[in-house]
């Protein structure tokens, strides 16, 4: 690591101009670290906004009957909660991690297109400002579900064009962000860092960025057609005019299923960085992890219609989409195996990032198994649109994606702030989150199997007990996240972090000082690859 350290410090010496002061630093920033920080803060704000909506949903569902909100507003809450969590919390959080860490990991001075990076971020607050403003419009916010199926979504009031515009903006932001990631990784790597020497987080983000480039324009196309159906007299999806509403579902899920992997592949990357560090071993089967992630990405394009089994399709279609979906378990299994094999006989310690990563491996696997159950077409006819599906995708997204984001935040926080966070508080946050997330979502499996439908503000009394347990868990989980805010707010009070931070850490990002200087790697470092230091 000596050469890289020397280069990094040399880069710091060249840093003759620091960050600008005041609001201009953030408004006009082209620095990948500042933009990464803004993405992460924005996603945290959206996480609590979407979380507040989840509290409304779970409070209403705590007991049978209508308690607090009008059913139309309840539908609006489920729709907005999903849109905000998917596009406002999870995706920007991973883009924030990518902005901060990819240039540091590949030895680049910044992202390849820094001005576009600024645009990618600043479009987001506008998009979500517009989306949230629809709650105050005549007719209320969009309430047709995040999938925006026509003809239901076309019944939205004044909010409709604003919904479409905000989805377009979110898409543009994501596409610009992914262009930047691809161009940076392809062109800005340190001279001797070949593709297969790249850290797993960089690899998973490269694959994710290609997925984004392929599918976000598809979503944009779908909502553009919705807009023209509503305002310009076309009939893409209107049966009365000769259109086909099912076509929207095909197009939407051609975007929607890869979108699931857009939210989980970077999580795989984060966990693949953390587990080796705290096992003090190199990642088992680095190359096979790359191939597995690529396989998952490819398969994600050919399974979309498993979301539409109950719509009706030819038997051959059912069989194809069922088996193709099941096939995803193979590369995913490779990844789980490799993480376990990395830990095997390692000198493991259990700091907060490792705890979140371990919980990720266990709980994401539960979400994967229920996904396999849903892949079975005849069974899906029963499970479809029940709380079983809600339990499944929340297991994938909360103890899956969100836990990986938390793990990454704890892992890299000392590198960002230059101080160690409060480990006791971090562990408390972890245990509270893990216990409450299971109390929230595990009973929803039983509710779904018993037949409780999704997206309803009221339900039959036989579902009462599990719903109450789920609501108590949700409020506990929501409150637990305040601990994370406390950890961040007190992060600057901890002991000074070393450059390497963690005993078992490896890779270029740990060769720069903590906190990482405003400019790093202005001179390309001699890349020492992940794993080499163990040889």
């Amino acid at each position: 690591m000596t050469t890289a350290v020397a280069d990094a410090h040399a880069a710091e010496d060249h840093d003759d101009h620091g960050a600008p002061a005041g609001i201009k630093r953030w408004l006009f920033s082209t620095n990948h670290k500042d933009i990464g920080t803004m993405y992460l803060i924005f996603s945290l704000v959206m996480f609590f906004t979407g979380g507040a909506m989840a509290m409304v949903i779970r409070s209403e569902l705590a007991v049978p009957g209508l308690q607090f909100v009008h059913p139309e507003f309840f539908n609006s809450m489920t729709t907005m909660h999903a849109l905000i969590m998917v596009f406002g919390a999870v995706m920007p959080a991973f883009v924030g991690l990518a902005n901060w860490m990819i240039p540091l990991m590949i030895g680049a001075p910044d992202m390849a297109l820094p001005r576009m990076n600024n645009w990618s971020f600043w479009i987001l607050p506008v998009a979500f400002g517009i989306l949230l403003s629809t709650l105050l419009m005549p007719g209320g916010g969009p309430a047709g579900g995040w999938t925006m199926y026509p003809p239901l979504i076309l019944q939205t009031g004044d909010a409709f064009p604003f919904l479409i515009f905000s989805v377009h903006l979110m898409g543009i932001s994501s596409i610009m962000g992914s262009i930047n990631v691809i161009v940076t990784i392809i062109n800005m790597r340190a001279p001797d860092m070949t593709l297969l020497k790249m850290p797993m987080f960089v690899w998973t983000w490269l694959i994710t960025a290609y997925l984004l480039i392929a599918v976000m324009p598809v979503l944009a196309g779908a909502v553009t057609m919705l807009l023209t159906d509503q305002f310009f007299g076309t009939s893409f999806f209107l049966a009365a005019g000769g259109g086909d509403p099912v076509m929207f579902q095909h197009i939407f899920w051609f975007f929607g299923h890869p979108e699931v992997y857009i939210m989980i592949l970077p999580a795989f990357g984060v966990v693949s960085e953390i587990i080796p560090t705290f096992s003090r071993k190199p990642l088992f089967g680095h190359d096979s992890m790359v191939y597995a992630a690529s396989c998952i990405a490819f398969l994600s394009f050919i399974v979309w219609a498993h979301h539409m089994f109950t719509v009706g399709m030819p038997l051959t279609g059912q069989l194809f989409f069922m088996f193709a979906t099941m096939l995803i378990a193979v590369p995913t299994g490779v990844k789980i195996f490799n993480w376990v094999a990395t830990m095997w006989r390692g000198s493991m310690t259990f700091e907060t990032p490792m705890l979140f990563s371990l919980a990720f491996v266990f709980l994401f696997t539960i979400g994967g198994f229920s996904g396999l159950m849903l892949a079975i077409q005849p069974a899906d006819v029963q499970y479809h649109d029940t709380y079983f599906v809600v339990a499944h995708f929340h297991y994938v997204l909360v103890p899956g994606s969100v836990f990986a984001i938390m793990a990454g935040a704890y892992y890299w926080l000392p590198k960002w702030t230059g101080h160690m966070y409060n480990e006791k508080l971090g562990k408390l946050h972890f245990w509270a989150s893990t216990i409450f997330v299971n109390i929230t979502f595990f009973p929803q499996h039983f509710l779904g199997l018993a037949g409780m439908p999704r997206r309803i503000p009221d339900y039959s009394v036989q579902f009462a007990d599990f719903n109450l347990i789920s609501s108590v868990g949700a409020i506990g989980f929501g409150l637990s996240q305040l601990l994370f805010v406390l950890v961040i707010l007190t992060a600057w009070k901890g002991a000074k972090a070393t450059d390497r931070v963690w005993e078992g850490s490896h890779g270029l990002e740990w060769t720069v000082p903590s906190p990482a200087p405003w400019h790093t790697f202005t001179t390309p470092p001699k890349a020492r690859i992940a794993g080499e230091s163990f040889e």
Partner: protein
Amino acid sequence: MDELERKKNIRRTTLIVVAVALAFYVGFIMMGVMRS
């Protein structure tokens, strides 16, 4: 790789990726046009 060549490569990669994104956007709308 000198700075000029790197900039040229960055521009080329950007244009390719933008073209792919636009192709998906226009392509799927055209598919809708053909079917409706």
